[in-house]
């Protein structure tokens, strides 16, 4: 008959550790079975996954979700603002460029018209002046030709055309 063991009691009281029991003499199969069972339980417990339970996980997740949503919202607002600003900038740029182009074209047209008018005035003035000059010369009395110098020693004066 196997001797009744006291190891579990001492173990439960904290007087013996499992290693101490193992290093000491195991007097009977009950002790051996106890150690074996204990090891098995311990190893099984160690093998089992300890559930990672975090009390604030849900709150943290919600906070993270909220943060992401907030960022997304802010980003979409910023994108809309940037798009609107960009759109208006392009619109104003093209509008200004078009206006400047129209203005330049108008100035160029006016310039051409001004040139034409001045040219017409000048042309008519010169034409009339020419007519006036011709008319005054044609009706000028001979006595007015004081400024015309007649060279009486002209070598050509005695030249006869028939002798040429």
């Amino acid at each position, binding site marked *: 008959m196997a001797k009744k063991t006291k190891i579990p009691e001492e173990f439960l009281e904290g007087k013996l550790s499992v290693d101490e029991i193992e290093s000491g003499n195991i007097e009977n199969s009950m002790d051996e079975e106890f150690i074996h069972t204990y090891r098995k339980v311990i190893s099984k417990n160690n093998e089992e996954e300890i559930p990672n339970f975090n009390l604030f996980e849900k709150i943290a997740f919600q906070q993270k979700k909220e943060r992401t949503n907030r960022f997304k919202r802010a980003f979409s607002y910023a994108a809309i603002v940037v798009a609107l600003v960009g759109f208006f900038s392009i619109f104003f740029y093209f509008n200004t460029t078009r206006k400047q182009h129209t203005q330049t074209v108008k100035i160029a047209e006016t310039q051409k*018209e001004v040139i034409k008018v001045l040219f017409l005035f*000048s042309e008519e003035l010169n034409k009339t002046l020419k*007519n006036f000059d011709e008319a005054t010369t044609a009706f000028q009395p001979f006595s007015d030709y004081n400024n015309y110098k007649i060279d009486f020693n002209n070598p050509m004066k005695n030249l006869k055309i028939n002798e040429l």
Partner: protein
Amino acid sequence: MKTKLIVLVLLIISATAFAQNGEKTIDSTFELLKAQKDISYFEVTGEMFKMLSETKETTDEFKDYMRKLTGMKMVRMYNGHDNGAPDIYKLFMQNTNLKGFSRLMTSETSTRKISFYQKKSKAGNEYLLVQSSAVIYITGTIDLKSISEFEQVMNIAGSAFDM
């Protein structure tokens, strides 16, 4: 009394008629001419001349011309003078008060008549070309010699202005 009233009415009518004949300012006559058939009107203000004198794509000579000008008006017939359109020369002369202007020249042939007028003042000079088919009115500090030289300048520089 009745006779006096009739005489008074006649006097008023004649005075009004006289006022209508050659009493308009040049600007008013231009307004009248503008309203005629087949007429094109062109006007440039002093501000525009200032702008033209500051444009980059022109010669310095042209800029000088633009700086000297303060106003320009022109009416011109676009279909010639034969299609029942009014004689601009006649219309202008009948309506405009040219007091202060001195006539420089008038040239007349069977088909056309042209007169040049000038008014000099401290503020600037005024030049008028009145023709059967066009009237040109130029104001500014420009002199007649410069205007007459414009044709030669443009003949030389014409290609630069694509004319």
